[in-house]
């Protein structure tokens, strides 16, 4: 390579005076040693909070190997250019995040190649600059790349709200029988006969966890049943916020059954925040006080197994429910009935016959039907080569 460069340098030196001597001579002007970038644009970056300008350009075809694209910026009316960045070929774009809303900028892009000699024979030739129109950054109203999830969320919210409205308007809504739930009243009845208490563990997650909120709905129903039957209820808590909500739920359940006298504060009690200190305390209570029925409903983590196995060894009837796939195997294997995954949410609706819950279950089923339809149509289309259905779901 070096020899070739040296020779071409020599040839240039020889030809240089001739070229200089005949600026408009018969020789066609030598093509610029280094080409200029193509289709250079500078616009506000779309879908952002401002302070950013997007530069795009096409790499010219015959780029020298070691070429680098230099970007410079000036703030009109001032005409002095400041260097901004150097970008390798093949990228084709650059985002200037130092821009500030309210200012107008002009950008200049040119190719610099250290290896190629420029017209004066010195290495480091620079191609002709391409200057952009003036551009100003501003914030945008919508992030277009997320249109698909925006539509999906809007559609789903619409379906849910309409279903809830339909449910509230009094139309009877059907929810299929969930096996685990019929056992709930049977379990409380058994506890009442044996004169032993019912233990309800609402999971260990906080009240911002959706399984916990569903569990509280079921706790409300069980509290109303134990108020009717006069059964003793014990609800040990691990999370302080769940504890407060659980106590309010049980208190209002006893009130709703007209038996506030039966409600005792310590029915709903707080043990500790730590997962395993709480687990040890609850399993100890299962062994010592032998409740007739254990409900393990809500969001559980590793402690599910200890409680399910300990409860099973005391011979209590156990109904479990969680949406976490990691704990379901143990509940399925060690408990009499298990609410699997979504059945936990459906159980809240089934028990309370609450229009809002029934309506949202209907809405979710409708959404599931739409997803299934979309999927099946997508699969058929994909088999015939149309991939739009999968790509439209890509989220960023």
């Amino acid at each position: 390579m070096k020899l070739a460069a040296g020779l071409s340098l020599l040839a240039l030196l020889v030809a240089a005076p001739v070229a200089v001597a005949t600026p408009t001579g018969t020789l066609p002007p030598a093509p610029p040693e280094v080409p200029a970038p193509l289709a250079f644009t500078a616009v506000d970056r779309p879908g952002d909070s401002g302070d950013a300008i997007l530069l795009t350009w096409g790499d010219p075809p015959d780029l020298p190997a070691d070429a680098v694209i230099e970007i410079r910026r000036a703030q009109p009316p001032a005409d002095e250019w400041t260097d901004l960045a150097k970008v390798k070929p093949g990228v084709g774009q650059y985002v200037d995040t130092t821009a500030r809303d309210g200012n107008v900028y002009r950008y200049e892009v040119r190719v610099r190649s250290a290896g190629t000699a420029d017209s004066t024979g010195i290495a480091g030739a620079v191609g002709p600059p391409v200057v952009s129109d003036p551009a100003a950054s501003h914030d945008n109203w919508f992030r277009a790349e997320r249109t698909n999830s925006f539509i999906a969320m809007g559609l789903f919210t619409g379906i849910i709200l309409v279903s809830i409205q339909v449910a509230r308007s009094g139309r009877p809504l059907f929810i299929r029988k969930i096996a685990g739930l019929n056992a709930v009243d049977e379990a409380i009845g058994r506890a009442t006969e044996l004169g032993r208490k019912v233990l309800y563990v609402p999971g260990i997650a906080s009240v911002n966890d959706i399984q916990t909120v569903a569990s509280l709905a079921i706790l409300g129903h069980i509290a109303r049943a134990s108020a009717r039957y006069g059964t003793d209820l014990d609800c040990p808590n691990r999370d302080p916020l769940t504890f407060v909500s659980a106590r309010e739920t049980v208190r209002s359940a006893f009130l709703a059954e007209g038996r506030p006298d039966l409600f005792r504060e310590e029915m709903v009690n707080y043990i500790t925040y730590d997962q395993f200190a709480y687990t040890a305390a609850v399993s100890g209570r299962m062994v010592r006080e032998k409740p007739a029925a254990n409900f393990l409903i809500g969001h559980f983590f590793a402690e599910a197994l200890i409680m399910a196995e300990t409860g099973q060894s005391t011979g209590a009837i156990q109904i479990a429910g969680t949406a976490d796939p990691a704990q379901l195997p143990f509940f399925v294997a060690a408990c009499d009935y298990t609410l699997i995954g979504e059945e936990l949410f459906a159980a809240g609706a089934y028990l309370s016959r609450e229009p809002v819950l029934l309506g949202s279950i209907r809405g979710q089923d409708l959404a599931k039907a739409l997803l299934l339809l979309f999927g099946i149509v997508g699969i058929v289309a994909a088999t015939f080569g149309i991939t739009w259905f999968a790509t439209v779901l890509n989220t960023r």
Partner: protein
Amino acid sequence: MAGLLDKLLKIDRRWIFFFVALSVTVPILVPLGLPISTTSATQMAFDFVEALEPGDVVLLSFDYGPSSAPENDPMAEGFMRHCLSRDLRVVVCVLYPLGALGLANNVVARIGHEFPNKVYGTDYVNLGYKDGDRAVMRRLGDSIADAFPTDVNGRPIADLPIFHGVRSIRQVKVVFTAATGLIGEWWITLVHAQFGTPVIIGPTAVSAPKYYAYISSGQLAGMLGGMKGAAEYEQLIGKKYPVLGNYYKGTRLFTAVKGMDAQTAIHFVIIVFILIGNVAFFASRLRQGRS
């Protein structure tokens, strides 16, 4: 035969406990060195880190507690050793409240000693614990310094050289979350989904099955599933980097590969227990059927 099985079923639970303790203790005292096969999810994770270039910034998040340290510690240590061996910049943070901070401090201190040429604040940093898990993740999307104004010792991170050229999670090449519970999943469904940062997860074996759905949907760049995933990873980095290989062979400390011997023994015991339990169950049902 049936009488024996019934007597077997009635045996005191503590005999089972004794047998379990025995079958875990013996392999610790007498290592067997059984072979460990590599699964594709671990190979994906290893290849992803191998493809990173020196100077790239990675985030190692401690999202587990002492209750799953024997599974997650080897993953976190293995990942940090792998990254420092490839001259990557490792940023450590902790989002799990239950004792994760102590584990992170131990790992960072131990690995810091193993790599004397690596400088705290330039090659690796420990940002400590922060409350608010998903609120922290959302702030990382804009600026790491907003979520973690200081490192674990209270030193402002603005003047740490490791953050040169890195403002938010978008400049981080991969997030490795050693996780139990939900925080690991949130890195996928929040940080990867909204900011695009690739995620490798090191879940406990309990939560590993769920992440196979995320691998097949392309939302995960790799997974080290439970102690077996950690053992596979230790073998892969031990083979590629002789320094690490010698460490893992020579160390007295606990490693996932050593743990796998005891895992094999206990798996054998539990399978036998399940078989005996079910044989006895069917025998008693057969007898009830006849009587």
